[in-house]
């Protein structure tokens, strides 16, 4: 059992406030990913949960017990660091045994747990090696093993893949997903990489400027982003966001064409911000009445996919998914329609989603 409750958590370093009241519930066995741009406070929040930095204000409960003043080693929480932070003077076995022994486990139990972790992570042939004799991926596995051996209630992972090369990254990502299924602990994972977030998470917490922008499953965040920040952050290439004016039933960019969409929410006479993902754009015939005018900037060919980046009349750069066989030269004029079911509407004033 591990249920985490964060109530109005605030954190300041001297006079700079970096977290402005975080409220969050994390359920048992859940895989939660904190995601957001650099400096959004996600790593800080993780360190507060770990107990490495003191909480300035608010309350953090683990299974209903207040944790604010509890020492990191007594919280039943283990952490995997970005740099792995293995003890350089100990071999792999000692690295894993260190924490287990300090928990007061007897020798056979320590050995049993280490061999279990070593088997799970394929570390058996490496047990006598020092960290500097290991590759990045191996160090990563040792760091995870060190956390596993303590059998914590909660695993914290701070950008654990950021020091690995691309090929290894997807491999270890699958590994982490498998581990979570096998051991079933509660995991909190920090990353700025939305692919990691989307593929691993039960729920994603999107953070920005020390606040939570939205919490939800990957599907919820992708399909119903709560505001323009989440809309722009989740999904690659980014969702195009641009201002449109109402002209009767049409949504128009001044001197840039217009579209008719179904179920446009009521936003008064003012305009609204329209969000369209690359696959919701439709390439129309240039003679068509409908659609926004755009001019091709460049094309990204990805083999089974291709994206055309084009500039709308108001200067917004939008990504449009096209058939890889199509070829668009820069400066070609195109006309972009929008699929009604793929349109997102946001308020112009505060960027919030309009129903």
């Amino acid at each position: 059992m591990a249920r985490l409750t964060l109530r109005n958590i605030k954190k300041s370093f001297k006079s700079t406030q970096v977290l402005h009241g975080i409220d969050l519930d994390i359920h048992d066995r859940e895989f939660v990913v904190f995601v957001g741009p650099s400096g959004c406070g996600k790593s800080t929040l993780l360190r507060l949960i770990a107990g490495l930095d003191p909480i300035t204000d608010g309350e953090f409960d683990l299974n209903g017990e207040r944790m604010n003043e509890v020492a990191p080693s007594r919280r039943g929480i283990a952490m995997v660091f970005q740099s792995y932070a293995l003890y350089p003077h100990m071999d792999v076995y000692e690295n894993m045994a260190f924490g287990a022994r300090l928990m007061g486990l007897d020798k056979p139990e320590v050995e049993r747990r280490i061999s279990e972790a070593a088997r799970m992570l394929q570390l058996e042939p490496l047990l006598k090696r020092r960290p500097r004799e290991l590759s990045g991926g191996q160090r990563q596995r040792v760091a995870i093993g060190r956390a596993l051996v303590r059998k914590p209630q909660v695993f914290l992972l701070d950008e654990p893949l950021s020091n690995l090369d691309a090929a290894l990254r997807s491999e270890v990502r699958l590994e982490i997903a498998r581990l979570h299924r096998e051991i079933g602990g509660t995991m909190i994972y920090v990353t700025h990489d939305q692919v990691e977030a989307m593929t691993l998470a039960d729920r994603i917490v999107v953070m920005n400027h020390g606040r939570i922008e939205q919490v939800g499953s990957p599907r919820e965040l992708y399909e119903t982003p709560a505001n323009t920040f989440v809309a722009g952050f989740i999904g690659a290439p980014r969702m195009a966001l641009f201002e449109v004016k109402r002209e009767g039933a049409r949504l128009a960019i001044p001197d840039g064409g217009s579209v008719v969409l179904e179920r446009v929410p009521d936003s008064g006479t003012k305009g609204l911000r329209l969000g369209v993902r690359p696959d919701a754009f439709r390439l129309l015939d240039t003679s068509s009445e409908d659609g926004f005018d755009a001019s091709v900037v460049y094309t990204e060919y990805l083999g089974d996919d291709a994206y055309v980046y084009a500039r709308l009349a108001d200067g917004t750069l939008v990504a449009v998914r096209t058939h890889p066989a199509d070829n668009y030269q820069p400066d070609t004029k195109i006309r972009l329609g929008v699929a009604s079911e793929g349109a997102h509407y946001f308020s112009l004033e505060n960027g919030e989603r309009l129903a």
Partner: protein
Amino acid sequence: MAKLRMTGRGLWITTLVAPPLAFVALFIVYPIIAAFAYAFFDWQGLLRGEFVGFANFHQVLFVEPYASWTRNAFTHNIIVFFALMVLQNGLGFLLAYGLWRGLPGARFHRIAVFMPVVLSTIIVGYLWKLFYHPLFGPVNQVLRGIGLDQLAQPWLGQSSTALWALIIANAWHLVGFPTLVFLAGMQRIPTEILDAARMETESEWVKITQIVWPLVAPSATIVFVLLFVGAFNWFELPYIMAGLDGSPFGSTDVLGLYFYRTAFGNVSAGTQDFGLGSALAVLIFIFIAAVASVITVRLRAREIQV
């Protein structure tokens, strides 16, 4: 072997390297070799007598009273070395740890601890001589002030306390050096490693002994070796505070003083003997060089690349 060509760069390097090499040869290599040579001759004042082989060495090591003087001085050097290992390096390590972990006032103490190191030994010597003064020295005044009159004593004037008084003065003077070296070593430890340890234990003792200490091994090598060399070359502080005779009654005599007295003479001994002095110097040199290299090799082996 690569042929040394006098290109512009080679010439440039030679020009820069030659003067210091000449300086080292003249003022360090030559005196060492000369002392080696002197040790094998009989001397009448500054006049070189006949070649006597190992007679000088034999005399300082096995003939009384020289033999017991040598033993006495050498024993004191050993006491100084181990005492300073604890009081200077041990305390320095703890101070460095406190400064590193940012205990309250760390910024002030970092300067305060290092300040005495920049003072000249002469100043420190006279200062502590005043501190220890039996009548108006602050040490005794403080003891009397807090009612411990029976503890007030002539610290430098009695055999039982004189050497330890010097050791404490030396530790006060130089504790900032190991502190600084250890602090630099600790600052090289990645913060995430300490964070990882904090996730596993809250005991400062475990963190110090199992994580920090092994990781500052390179710093330990430096301060250990330098302390060893320093302890067996100890001269200025006892010279200033206890005089050339290692008073009272040789209880602060160390190899440095003993060598100087023997080679150059002093008021009480009156005579000078270059042969015996050189023999002592050579023995001290060989002892320091041999032990220091062993310590270095042994300590290097336990250093770990972070």
